[in-house]
């Protein structure tokens, strides 16, 4: 595990996150821009589902860790609780979709390289990074989804990710419009 958070270019961060979680090569191709489209198939839906689940697992692990360590400032803790609840909802929804289709969803990894979170600012920046990664991944992948119900759910998941990202950007004083 790294001692300090490493700031990577956004696309690299998404790609690293997906690769470390064992995401399928075709999905990595979409994320790094070397592929523009996948065939509309059950296999593509599964690839998108598994990649999305990898990101949700990592986001949940990060929020749970930061909440357990009491890293969020008091006024922001309610947002963190809301957001990790959203991520757990996203995870459970997508696991249910995988289950309905008779497959087995990937489980969370035993640990994630969150780096050393020394305080609230580190935690907020790590959460922002993963929310940006989630937003970019869903945006890159959602157009490939074949089925109506999953596309509908994925669109609302993306709306949540944007809300999370925007709140942390505002909290950190970053430009949002």
């Amino acid at each position, binding site marked *: 595990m790294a001692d300090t958070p490493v700031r990577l270019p956004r696309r690299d961060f998404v790609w690293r996150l997906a690769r470390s979680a064992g995401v399928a090569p075709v999905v990595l191709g979409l994320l790094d821009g070397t592929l523009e489209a996948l065939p509309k198939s059950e296999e593509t839906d599964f690839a998108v589902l598994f990649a999305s689940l990898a990101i949700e697992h990592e986001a949940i692990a990060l929020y749970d860790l930061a909440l357990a360590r009491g890293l969020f400032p008091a006024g922001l803790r309610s947002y963190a609780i809301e957001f990790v609840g959203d991520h757990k909802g996203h995870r459970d929804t997508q696991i*249910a979709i995988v289950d309905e289709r008779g497959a087995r969803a990937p489980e969370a990894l035993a640990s994630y390289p969150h780096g050393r979170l020394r305080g609230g600012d580190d935690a907020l920046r790590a959460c922002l990074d993963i929310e940006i990664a989630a937003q970019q991944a869903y945006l890159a992948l959602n157009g490939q989804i074949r089925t109506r119900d999953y596309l*509908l*759910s994925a669109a609302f998941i993306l709306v949540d990710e944007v809300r999370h990202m925007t709140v942390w950007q505002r909290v950190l004083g970053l430009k949002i419009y």
Partner: protein
Amino acid sequence: MSQRRALLKAALFAPVALALRPSSVEATDYASAAELFEAIDRLEADTAARLRRLGRAAPAARAFTASALADHERHRRLRARHRNRLGLGAAAVATATESEDASLAGLRAAQEALVYAHAEGFPALGDALAVHDLMANMVDLARQLTVIDLWIEREDARG
């Protein structure tokens, strides 16, 4: 979080129970890409009218309202390209109006309806590129919705 948003989230994030979803929170089922584009045009015009009114009533809001209206203009151009690609007719020419309602609550409701029309409409598009591009538009709109939410929270905290 609005009641509709909470109900929709509860329903949508439980796909195994879709059959049990209350009819009051059913997502709008757009029949075609043309129907979706018309709905977005109408909802965008309503939101834009409210942004113009708010921008005039509250100078502190002008940077936001100007940015949001510029996004609308860009989104309209993108939709026009996809209308053309998909063989749909051109959108009706909208006139820039101004709402009588300058309330944040009214703007929030309009903005949320516009975001939801995008989210609920993707299955009607049937075209991966159009889904991707309109989803990027939705990201802009969802960000604006969050800004409005944060603004309302701040106003509420001030009493």
